C-alpha cells in the first residue's frame, strides 16, 4: 500500500522529468517510454525563456529580505513581549496573535493599494518587506513560547555584568534562540519561496519575476501545447527546492513538526 502511494506521489515528477528531455515528436511516440535521444536543447530553451538565473536571483532576494526581517524583528519582539509582564505587552501580543486568523484574501485588495502608494509594488525588495509584515505574527508567537524556556537568571546575570538591553539580546539571547530560529526560518522560507498569489499581484515587470511567475508566464504563452519547453522549465523551477530538501530534510521535517505543534 505504501509503495503504491509512493509511486503515485512520484508519478507527476517522474513523468515531468522523463518527458522534459523528449521532443514533441518523440512524446507522440510514447509518453511512458524511455527517451531514445535526449533533447537537452529543451533545457537550454527553457533556461532562456524563463530567464532562469535572474528569476532564481529574484526569488532568492525576496526570500532573503523577508527572512532576515522576520527572524530579527520577531525574535526581538517575541523575546521582549515574553519577558515583560503587564497590560501593554499583553495587548501587543494579542494584537499580533489574533490577526493570524485573517486570511490573505481578505487583505490582498487593499494591500495592493497600500503597496502602490508606498511605492513598494514592483520590486523584489518591496515584496520582501511585505512578507515581513505578513510573517512576523506567527514567528513572534513561536519565539514568545520558546523564550519561556530560557531561565531569567541568564538575563539578570548579564545585566549585572554590565550588559545593556540590546547587547543582552544580541549576544546572549539571540544565540540561545537558534532551535526556534531554525523552525521559523524553514517555515517562512518555504512559504515565501513557493508563494504565488502575492508575487502575482505585486511584481508587474518581467525583470523582477520570481521563478513561479516566469514559469506561469511561459504557460500562459504556449498553453498546454508545447509541453517539451514547459516541462523543462518546470523541472528547472523545482530543482533548487528538491536539492535543498534532500540536503536538509531532517531539519525541515523537524521544523514542520515543531511549528505545527507549537503553532
Amino acid at each position, binding site marked *: 500500500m505504501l509503495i503504491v502511494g509512493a509511486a503515485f506521489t512520484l508519478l507527476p515528477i517522474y513523468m515531468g522529468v522523463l518527458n522534459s528531455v523528449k521532443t514533441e515528436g518523440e512524446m507522440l511516440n510514447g509518453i511512458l517510454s524511455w527517451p531514445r535521444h535526449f533533447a537537452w536543447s529543451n533545457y537550454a530553451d527553457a533556461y532562456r525563456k524563463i530567464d532562469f538565473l535572474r528569476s532564481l536571483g529574484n526569488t532568492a532576494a525576496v526570500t532573503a529580505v523577508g527572512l532576515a526581517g522576520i527572524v530579527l524583528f520577531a525574535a526581538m519582539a517575541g523575546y*521582549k513581549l515574553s519577558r515583560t509582564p503587564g497590560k501593554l505587552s499583553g495587548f501587543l501580543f494579542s494584537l499580533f496573535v489574533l490577526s493570524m*486568523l485573517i*486570511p*490573505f484574501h*481578505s*487583505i490582498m485588495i487593499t494591500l495592493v493599494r497600500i503597496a502602490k502608494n508606498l511605492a513598494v509594488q514592483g520590486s523584489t525588495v518591496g515584496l520582501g518587506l511585505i512578507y515581513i509584515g505578513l510573517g512576523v505574527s506567527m514567528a513572534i508567537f513561536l519565539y514568545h513560547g520558546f523564550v519561556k524556556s530560557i531561565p531569567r537568571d541568564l538575563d539578570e546575570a548579564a545585566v549585572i555584568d554590565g550588559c545593556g538591553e540590546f547587547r543582552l539580546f544580541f549576544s546572549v539571547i539571540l544565540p540561545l534562540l537558534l532551535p526556534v530560529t531554525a523552525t521559523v526560518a524553514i517555515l517562512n522560507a518555504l512559504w515565501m519561496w513557493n508563494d504565488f498569489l502575492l508575487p502575482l499581484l505585486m511584481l508587474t515587470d518581467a525583470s523582477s519575476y520570481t521563478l513561479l511567475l516566469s514559469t506561469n508566464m511561459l504557460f500562459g504563452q504556449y498553453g498546454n501545447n508545447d509541453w517539451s519547453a514547459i516541462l523543462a522549465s518546470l523541472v528547472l523551477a523545482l530543482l533548487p527546492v528538491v536539492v535543498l530538501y534532500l540536503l536538509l530534510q531532517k531539519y525541515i521535517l523537524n521544523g514542520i513538526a515543531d511549528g505545527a505543534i507549537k503553532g
Partner: protein
Amino acid sequence: MIDRLRLKRHGILLAFVLPALLFYATFLLAPAFGGIWYSLTDWNGLNPLYAFVGLDNYAEALTEDPSFGHAVFFTLKYVLFMVVLQNALAILVAVLIESRAKTKAVFRTIFFMPNMLSMIIGGFMWMFVFTRVLPELAMRTGLTFLDRSWIGDPSFSFYAILIVSLWGGVGYLMVIYIAALQGVPSSLKEAAAIDGAGVWHTFRYITLPMIYPALTIGIFLTLNSSFKVFDAVFALTGGGPGRETQVIALNIFEEAFGFSNRYGYASAKAMILFLIVLVITIVQLRLMKRREVEA
C-alpha cells in the same frame, strides 16, 4: 520614581517591538481595516472618489450573485472532501510508515516531497499527467476510465483538483501525525495485543484517542488552507470551464483584478470569506477541544 521606571520599561518594550509592529501595521492591520471600510463602498480601485453604500455589497454578494454563490458552494464541497480525505490519508500513511522501521526514512522523504514544491508547479505537472499521460496509459492498458476529460469536464475537474490538493497536502499532515504517533506509549499497544485486540481495534481504541489532539490541529489546518485554495485551481483549470470550478479565492481575485475592477464589492466578498472561515474554525476547535478533554 516608580512612574519613571515604568516609563523606561515601556520604552524598552516598544524599542524591541516597534520594528515588527511597523511592518505588521502597514502590511497587515492597515489593509485589514481598509478592507472593512472599502467593503462598504463602491470603490473601483482607481477613482479617488467613491460612495459609501453601507451593506449593499454584502447583500448583492449573498443574494444576487450566482457566480459567488456557486463559488461558495463549490468551495464548501471541496473543503468537506479535503477535511475527510486529507486527514484520513495522512493518518493512514503515518501509521503505515511508523510500522516499518527499516524503510521509514525513505517513505517519509517521498511523501513529504510534494509539499516542498509550489502547487503552481505541481499543478502544471499534474496537468501534463491528466492531459497526456493518462490517455496514453488508458490506451496501452485498456483501463478506459482513466481517459477522461479531467480538465475540461467540470465533474471530473473537481476530482482532478482534489487529487492535486491531496498530493500536495497529505505530506504536511503526515509529519504532524507521525510526531503524534511517536508519543503513543508502545506499552499500551502491547497490552492491547495481549488482550487480543486486532489491528483495527488497537487503532480505534488506543491509537486514535491518543492522537486526538493532533487530529484537532490536522482538521484545523485543513479547514484553514482549503477554504483559501487558489494555486491548485489556478494552475489546473483557471476556474473553468466557464466558472464551473471557480473557488471563493479565485472569484474574489477576478472581481478585483479582472475586468470589472470592483474593489469595494470584492472586499465585501473577502470579508464574507473571512467570516465563514472564522465561524467554522471556532466551532471546530470548540467541539473538538471538548472531546479532547473527555477522551
